[in-house]
């Protein structure tokens, strides 16, 4: 359930120290950028930002709030999800290694406009992670230094982790010549 403001949870075992930091971060984000919503689930704090403010929010988190490690970038295709409003949800997992605080930043994207600014200039770890999201989902990252397929062969045309692509593929894995003893 997304809310506009986080409330501290007094039942947490660490005495809520991490939640204090998150409280301050989320307050600062609310002041900085409009359209930001939050929620907490199993002690994970998630922030939904609109695509236009993504780069600014991530830069702000990195430089002013010390979220120096980018843990993961991934994407979820909500095509078959009950109650979903947008198709693709990007997930950015951030971590502040100094205070040991984790934050998840979410951006929702819809077809046909599947482009999003790249954060390679902020964290070098984003380079390959974004290439993988492009490979698997087809989301293009603007200003990425080298956006091409990373895990699948370059001649592969589909984006396999989308929900409309079948598990067994569309016959690409059978498309090779067979060698026999005489020939090979």
């Amino acid at each position, binding site marked *: 359930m997304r809310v506009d403001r986080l409330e501290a949870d007094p039942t947490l075992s660490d005495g809520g120290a991490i939640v204090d930091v998150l409280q301050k971060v989320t307050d600062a984000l609310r002041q900085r950028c409009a359209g930001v919503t939050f929620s907490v*689930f199993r002690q994970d704090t998630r922030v939904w930002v609109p695509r236009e403010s993504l780069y600014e929010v991530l830069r702000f988190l990195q430089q002013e709030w010390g979220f*120096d490690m980018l*843990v993961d970038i991934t994407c979820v295709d909500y095509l078959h*999800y009950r109650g979903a409003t947008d198709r693709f949800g990007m997930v950015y*997992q951030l971590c502040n290694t100094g205070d040991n605080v*984790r934050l998840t930043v979410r951006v929702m994207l819809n077809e046909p406009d599947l482009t999003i600014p790249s954060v390679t200039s902020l964290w070098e770890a984003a380079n390959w992670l974004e290439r993988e999201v492009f490979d698997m989902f087809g989301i293009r990252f603007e200003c990425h230094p080298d956006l091409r397929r990373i*895990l*699948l062969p370059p001649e592969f045309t589909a984006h396999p982790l989308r929900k409309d692509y079948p598990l067994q593929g569309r016959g690409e894995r059978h498309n090779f010549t067979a060698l026999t003893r005489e020939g090979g």
Partner: protein
Amino acid sequence: MTTQQDYLWTLNFGPQHPATHTTLRLVLKLDGERVVDAVPDIGYLHSGFEKIGEHLDYNQYVTVTDRMNYVSPMANNVAWHHAVEKLLGIELTPRCKYLRVIVAELARISDHLLCVGAMGLDVGAFTFFLYGFYEREKIYDIFESLCGARFTNSYTRVGGLLHDITPVTIEQIRDFLRRLPATLSDMERLLTRNRIFMDRMQGVGVLTAHEAINRGVSGPVARASGVTRDLRKDEPYLAYNDFDFQVCCTRAGDCYARFLVRIHEIRESLKIVQQAIENLPAGPVNVGADERVGLPDKQQVYQTIEGLITHFELVMTSRGFSVPCDEVYGAVEAPNGELGFYLVGDGSNVAYRARCRPPSFINFALFPHLICGHTLSDVVAVLGSLNIIAAELDR
């Protein structure tokens, strides 16, 4: 620029090469012996693990997680079920937590033994590799008596484990703990102060702490560069709070430092297993039938109504345990770094999205940065020290 680049020689390294630790490919641009640029090409083992995660149950998928980092499969099982239990909000029994710690630390010892063995093998020390493998066979014997499989044992289940531990296995673990320090000292005597090994490994592939954090590196590679981050201490999960152990770090950040960190981590893991096996709490290993996630024992199924209902709910098709419609990220300290799973639940017992955050993938992205300016023989040393497991890299 083209005239300057004309004399550069392009060398293809892999994907089938003994030093590439299975299938990864590097296209190296060499200036004589010096590497000017290295372009990694991966995906030669991409099997669609994340797509399979959308079709298999939470208990079935653990068999697939075994095949990710296949030198320490127990650690992947523990990581997967850690994330699943975080999603479901289940609290494990103390005995289960201790047992999972024991198997995770044994998997860590096994992974580090293979990694340092392979580092030795790649620079030419074959005996060192064989010593490491002999100890790993003992760990395989322990796992075999625990759950039946040498490796790729899918030992964890949602809410508990496959079987409880038996006294035979406990005795085998105690025996292993008695004998490993001697072999480890032998191995250290072979290589740690060896002039040739030190010359090949020191100063090669230096990674600074700031670079390590910016590039998202975790695990022994980061700890060798001075980043004192270990999820077992920073975000304790399972029963790591109860154990007294140290996090091994160095400041140098070169291949030799990574080697030393791994050797010392083996000793720390031995301490943890020792403490865990001596203080193993009694009690049930799986969560109770009320949680409706684990299959109850047959006695309970035949004699109590709750056992019968739980069994029916879990086993009949289109039933199964209910999962909140929300998303969670759960990470553990795998031997290679931070292994996390991002799970999206949609109410059924099949994950809607199961994303694995693989430490080898993040570590391999470091490679072009580390190898610049070094020679061709250092390529092998750096690749060995990063412990890239191709199945986790490509999933």
